[in-house]
């Protein structure tokens, strides 16, 4: 019931550990910021006077649009499948995660191909009704709205996961109190469930927003000028100060993100006090009937249909018509590369996240809280740029080592990091740590401090607490984190492109090559592979999420999976 604010101190160690990990992760971001300090001629002034206003406006609308849409879809569906019962509930509970598997830029290609003026849908309309372009108004898919739609469909699962876990784990007692105090379902939702779930939901949302801000492919394809596209455009242009001005834009983009992080820190402040009851009791979901049930089913079905089914079917058809011509062997090799990289990255990301958050729990000092917050900053910087941020320190290190080896041993080491898997993985980590950190952190707030206290008084050392209490209770969170990272990495492009060793290809790279040559249909094969690679983890994730949480019986249908699941 009561949660002591202070948990048990671990002395200096936590700060040291958190500090070094964070340093490792934010160095690339710092590099970019430093780069921004350099002189870019009057590039920046020029941008500010011409494009910047657009960037700001579009970015703002995009972020707001996506955030609000994902919030509605994610929270709504989570509430439905957690606390209500209707046909197909247990199916939706995991299939709502499927859109995670689909890279946004591919979804964008697919939808554009379907809905653009020359696409089948409009062509069909024209031919059947013998319209010409002026006879009808068709919503322009390549537009801000289109982008919002696509991104929302791709990102809502983050919020869904977060909200669902939160609902489940609180479903125990406080909602019951709400009932005895005369609150109907709706008021229970808005006055208890939502406020309690908010920090978790916010964690999910902040991931969504950061990902949106960093999104390039889809947004650019939709002809929406955001900071991300602007940064790329500037970076790609064959002009002397390209990098610097790109860095300056990025730095500008970081400001609101820092605010966001501060805001989240604020929202999370309360999260530490959650969980007023030590009783976990599953509350039997209320069964819906008639039109209500129908409504619930549609609400859950639509996101899956649009976010997953349509693009997948599109790529299957494309693949069948004219798939990737390259050899199976080459294809398998790419797949293998992708999977290996993703696995390594996700394992590392989760392990680090767990240790960092645990250290922070041991010593929740102001410094540690702040450091863990900013550790994930890289997630909000467009991949291509953060990649350069990674490149700078790595190559510097390479040279230092090279010189040392040269002067001392007289041998030439060549480049130890850049152009190696090491660099690629490091690049990934700087990007995706935000995901694992957020999820694990949120999961940890579900483990009452008084449980730690109990374990400690029973002679468990911090290590023991981590192993015997947190690991089992966080199993779900950890797996979920790992798999989200996995999916993200499978889709990752820029870092892979820059750092991969010569001749090293991944699925995403391949798809990008073809797509960049506008060879969509051939790209479909790789796209499908990515989707499949993304699906497997989603399936696993789904299964773990549906397993009973510690402290519950085993009927998966009215089980709180919360303490074990994610936000």
């Amino acid at each position: 019931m009561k949660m002591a604010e202070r948990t048990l101190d671990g002395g200096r160690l936590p700060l040291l550990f958190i500090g070094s990990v964070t340093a490792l992760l934010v160095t690339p971001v710092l590099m970019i910021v430093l780069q921004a300090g350099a002189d870019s001629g009057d590039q920046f002034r020029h941008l500010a006077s011409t494009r910047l206003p657009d960037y700001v406006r579009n970015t703002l609308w995009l972020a707001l649009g996506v955030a609000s849409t994902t919030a509605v879809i994610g929270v709504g569906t989570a509430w439905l499948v957690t606390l209500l019962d209707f046909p197909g509930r247990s199916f939706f509970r995991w299939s709502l995660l499927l859109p995670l598997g689909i890279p946004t830029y591919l979804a964008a290609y697919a939808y554009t191909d379907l809905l653009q003026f020359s696409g089948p849908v409009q062509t069909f309309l024209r031919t059947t009704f013998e319209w010409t372009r002026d006879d009808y108004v068709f919503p322009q898919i390549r537009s801000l709205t289109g982008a919002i739609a696509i991104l929302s469909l791709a990102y809502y699962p983050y919020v869904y996961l977060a909200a669902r876990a939160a609902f489940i784990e609180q479903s125990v007692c406080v909602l019951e109190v709400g009932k005895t105090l005369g609150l109907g379902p709706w008021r229970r939702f808005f006055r208890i469930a939502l406020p309690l779930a908010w920090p978790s939901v916010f964690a999910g949302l902040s991931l969504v927003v950061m990902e949106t801000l960093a999104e390039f492919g889809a947004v650019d394809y939709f002809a929406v000028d955001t900071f991300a596209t602007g940064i790329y455009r500037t970076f790609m242009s064959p002009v002397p100060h390209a990098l610097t001005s790109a860095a300056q834009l990025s730095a500008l983009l970081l400001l609101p993100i820092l605010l966001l992080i501060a805001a989240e820190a604020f929202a999370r402040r309360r999260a530490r006090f959650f969980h007023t009851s030590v009783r976990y009791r599953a509350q039997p979901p209320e069964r819906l009937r008639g039109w209500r049930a129908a409504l619930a089913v549609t609400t859950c079905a639509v996101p899956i249909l649009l976010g997953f089914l349509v693009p997948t079917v599109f790529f299957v058809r494309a693949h069948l018509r004219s798939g990737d011509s390259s050899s199976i062997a080459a294809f398998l090799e790419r797949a293998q590369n992708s999977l290996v990289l993703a696995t390594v990255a996700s394992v590392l990301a989760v392990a680090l996240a767990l240790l960092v958050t645990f250290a922070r729990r041991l010593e929740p000092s102001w410094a540690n809280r702040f450091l863990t917050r900013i550790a994930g900053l890289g997630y909000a910087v467009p991949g291509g740029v953060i990649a350069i941020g990674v490149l700078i320190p790595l190559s510097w290190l390479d040279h230092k080592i090279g010189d040392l080896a040269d002067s001392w041993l007289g041998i030439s080491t060549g480049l130890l990091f850049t152009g190696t898997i090491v660099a690629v993985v490091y690049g990934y980590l700087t990007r995706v740590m935000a995901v694992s950190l957020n999820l694990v952190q949120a999961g940890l707030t579900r483990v009452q401090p008084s449980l730690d206290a109990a374990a400690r008084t029973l002679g468990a050392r911090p290590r023991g607490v981590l192993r015997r209490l947190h690991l089992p209770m966080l199993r779900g969170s950890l797996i979920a984190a790992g798999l989200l990272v996995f999916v993200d990495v499978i889709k990752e492009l820029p870092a892979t492109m820059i750092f991969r060793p010569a001749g090293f290809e991944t699925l995403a790279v391949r798809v990008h090559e073809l797509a960049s040559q506008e060879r969509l249909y051939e790209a479909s094969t790789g796209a499908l592979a990515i989707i499949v690679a993304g699906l497997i983890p989603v399936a696993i994730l789904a299964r773990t999420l549906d397993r009973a949480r510690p402290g519950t019986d085993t009927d998966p249908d009215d089980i709180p999976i919360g303490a074990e699941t994610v936000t």
Partner: protein
Amino acid sequence: SPEAPSSDTESQADSAPATDQVVNVYSARHYDTDEKLYAAFTDATGIDVEVTEADSAALLERLAREGDQSPADVFVAVDAGRLALADSRDIFQPTDSEILNQRVPENLRHPDGLWFGLTKRARVIVYAKDRVQPDEISNYEELADEKWRGRVVIRSSTNIYNQSLVAALIDALGEEATEAWCEGVVANFARTPQGGDRDQIRAIAAGEGDIGVVNTYYLGQMIASDEEADREAAAKVGIIFPNQGDRGTHVNIAGAGIIKSAPNQANAVKLLEFLTEEEAQRIFSDGNKEYPVVDGIAPPVELEPFGSFKDDPVNASVFGSNAQAALELMDRCGWR
């Protein structure tokens, strides 16, 4: 770095230690046909080709950071502007190869042999056969003409080909005139610039726009495509080589230069020379529908019907020197 041990060994292997049996290529080109080329080169010379593909900007950064430690021997870019930029970063070493000099035309290589064009692509005007007469437009300047109001489709100014086109125009017309032209074109847009060159062709075929500007090989590829829809779309459009009356059509190149610190300089030269041989040039044109740089080698069959054309003799390096101006100019005109 926590991962260091895990893949230390790999990294040794990856940063290919210099042996005269390899040549390391940093390439901003990603075409399947290129693999064929490299394979052919290896067959011919027994030299392995290690390719690292990425966006040219990133590659340039990497080259710059790697400095003298870099394993790279050759840098390949799909645009003269990029080559010029690389040059301005002073990463190339001059190559004095008889073969290259006589095979690659003057205007398609660096005066001091820092880089050489390998293929040629013309940026042409395409039009809807059913709605536009071929004689209605004959040069880029006319794209700004009132009569095309709401009929022009073209991709965004982020695209390097447009940047180079404008850079060339600045060279030809001067900055004011070009800006005026640019404003005119923007005014004529049928839709916000979006998609790639194929999308422009499709849009014209579908009637969303009447004329557009694309690179020749995209049209070639669509004509050769095994996609029904693409072939139909391609069939609906005709092309015009602009400015045949005067300076000639704006052409751009994919080219390559040899890196200063190249560990395998000799192999690098061999590679470039091989790429300008007839066989290689054929693969470029047949495989990718690009125009060969070497005279006397037939253009891609798909493009033959459009006949031969006179290309703008301006040295491609101006694309680089004017890039900044071009970019800012397009920004000012609101060309997204």
